[in-house]
């Protein structure tokens, strides 16, 4: 009898406090297994897996039809040949990932509204094309995406799978360019822009996070802070394995071009008050001198041999036509998010 009572009590206590989580369609838990980041610091952000729906093959509209954007709204741009596309924060705030296909490029534009980081990933992994979804999980208040092919979880700011079959696999970065809408319109007036007809009913143009992007004190989840700069200052970060270097907009007041070396690689960082972009210099490019010739068109630089480069680093005219600047592992984001993941130095000249 005592044993029965004990079993009943144990069952009761168990039923009194428990939790579960699974993918109801398959009956498995998509977050099972080993994590390469401390799982105690992985948080369920609230909306749940796919609660923030990623976009898949989204629709686009013309610049002139994107009336929902103001000139100061930020957009993330991508260019493949003559196909130029803008992915506004105003839409990504609600979807965080846009799975797109531009020519032969399978691109995932990943954007975390809580860290302000927009990073492009190749959706072809190990030879298979996948789409990324929003896991609803956060690490250091940063997006954890998952790929639908293997259900592996990917930490955006680490650019690698941190759980699942592909754990340890690094994302192949695709260069994106972030600026404000007013600037983008001048750069690429013929570009396509994400349409608000996404198939989802959302209040595009109204941030779901209020003044989060500008309020240095507002955080929704615990994350380490670094008081060297205001938390929400937008910086350009170039990241390595464990280290990063950041460039601030004030760095580009007196000059528009910075040549720097980070972890043995040479970079060209170019900016003004509206954008910062970086390129890796390899081979003969290291021997060139560059001049900032930006005049509100896509043309950004000219080297001392007369080759002109656009904002994506493509050589668009001159003797070096076709000899592009190298893409760098660089992206824009809120300051606090970089030292939360990387040993970070601030460029000091």
């Amino acid at each position, binding site marked *: 009898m005592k044993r029965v009572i004990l079993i009943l009590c144990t069952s009761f206590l168990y*039923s*009194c*406090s*428990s*939790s*579960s*989580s*699974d*993918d*109801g*369609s398959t009956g498995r*838990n*998509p*977050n*099972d*297994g080993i994590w390469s980041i401390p*799982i*105690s610091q*992985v*948080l*369920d*952000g*609230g*909306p*749940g*897996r*796919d*609660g923030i*729906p990623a976009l*898949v093959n989204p629709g686009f509209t013309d610049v002139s039809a994107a009336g929902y954007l103001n000139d100061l709204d930020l957009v993330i741009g991508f260019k493949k040949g003559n196909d130029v596309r803008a992915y506004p924060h105003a839409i990504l705030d609600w979807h965080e990932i846009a799975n797109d296909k531009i020519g032969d490029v399978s691109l995932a534009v990943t954007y975390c509204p809580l860290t302000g980081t927009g990073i492009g990933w190749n959706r072809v992994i190990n030879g298979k094309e996948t789409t990324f*979804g929003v896991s*609803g*999980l956060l690490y250091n208040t940063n997006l954890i995406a998952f790929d639908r092919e293997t259900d592996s979880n990917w930490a955006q700011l680490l650019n690698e799978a941190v759980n699942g079959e592909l754990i340890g696999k690094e994302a192949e970065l695709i260069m994106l360019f972030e600026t404000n809408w007013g600037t983008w319109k001048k750069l690429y007036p013929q570009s396509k822009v994400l349409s608000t007809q996404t198939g*989802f*009913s*959302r*209040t595009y143009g*109204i941030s*779901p*996070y*209020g003044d*989060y992007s500008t*309020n240095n*004190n*507002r*955080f*929704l*989840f*615990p994350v380490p802070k670094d008081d060297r700069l205001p938390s929400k200052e937008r910086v350009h970060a170039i990241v390595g394995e464990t280290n990063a270097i950041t460039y601030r907009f004030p760095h580009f007041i007196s000059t528009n071009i910075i040549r720097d070396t980070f972890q043995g690689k040479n970079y060209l960082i170019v900016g003004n008050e509206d954008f910062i972009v970086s390129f890796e210099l390899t081979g003969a490019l290291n021997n060139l001198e560059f001049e900032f010739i930006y005049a509100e068109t896509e043309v950004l630089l000219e080297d001392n041999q007369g080759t002109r480069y656009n904002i994506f680093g493509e050589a668009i005219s001159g003797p070096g036509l076709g000899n592009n600047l190298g893409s760098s592992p660089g992206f824009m984001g809120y300051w606090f998010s970089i030292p939360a993941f990387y040993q970070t130095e601030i460029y000091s000249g």
Partner: protein
Amino acid sequence: MRNIIGSIILIIIPLFSSAQTCCSGGVPLSNNLGLPNEGKGIFIIGLNYDYNNLNTLNAGSRELDDDSRQRITNSVLLNLGYSLTDRISFETLFTWVNQTRTINQFGFENFTETSGIGDAVFLVKYSMPELLGSFSVINYGLGVKAPLGKSDHTTPNGIQLTADLQPGSGAWDGLGWVSISKGLDFRPSAAISGSLTYRLPGKNNSYLNNTAVYQFGNELQANLGYSDQVIILGALVNPGLIFKYRNVLEDEIDGQEIPNTGGEWVFVRPELTIPIQQKFHLSTRVELPLYSFVEGTQLTPTARISIGVSYQFSKEKNDFPLNNTL
């Protein structure tokens, strides 16, 4: 007559609301407190089940065309009331909570669930009958909500869940309540009642592994209702209709307001109480939103259904409120 009013209070006055979430999916203490003071030495026990379904996504007061997310809270509530004197009574409410979150998107379903003992309410009440004339009673109450429930549930693989899905709040809350009920002179079986409650949430200082301080938003709730006694199929039953206004401020983390929390709502709640035996009765309630305004974008209540029984233990015979009206 006091007992008639008492029964009306029992039926229609909702008390404390302790929704723990940005989307009002928390433990429904609101509809399950408010036992009347039936006189010195009387003990009342109630057991209720509450189902709260949130499947409506709002941006402000605008309903979005999106039903992919669903939150359901199932609660079992044990209510105990004891009258120390004819004026002073105590009431407690213990809860067990089951919360689910289901997302149906892209042909996939994701399901998360937590269960556990929830927070408990301890309340001291003071009654002043006949203060507003005959057939009237005013009640005041002060109490606390004690953090008996767990507020640090993780998923089975150790991922921390936010306050939204926790059975408990991890904080002591202060509660204040006042209610007024007035029987109608021209129809003694009917009464109009109102109540006002305020919840002052405390801080959960150990939120997310002691890395943050979480505080739910202050909450005001007002109710206005009418109840009566009618005979249906030969049985005397107590129907009631209540309008509820609820206003919740935004939650805070580390002193900063959290977007997409807080809002205000107006509900209509038809209720029906049926005496089964002298001291035993059954009550049912349906609560439907008439107006919902949420801060930002949130899931907002779609429908809530409650059913419960209560039993009165008393020293004297035939003093159960409903019995006097049979």
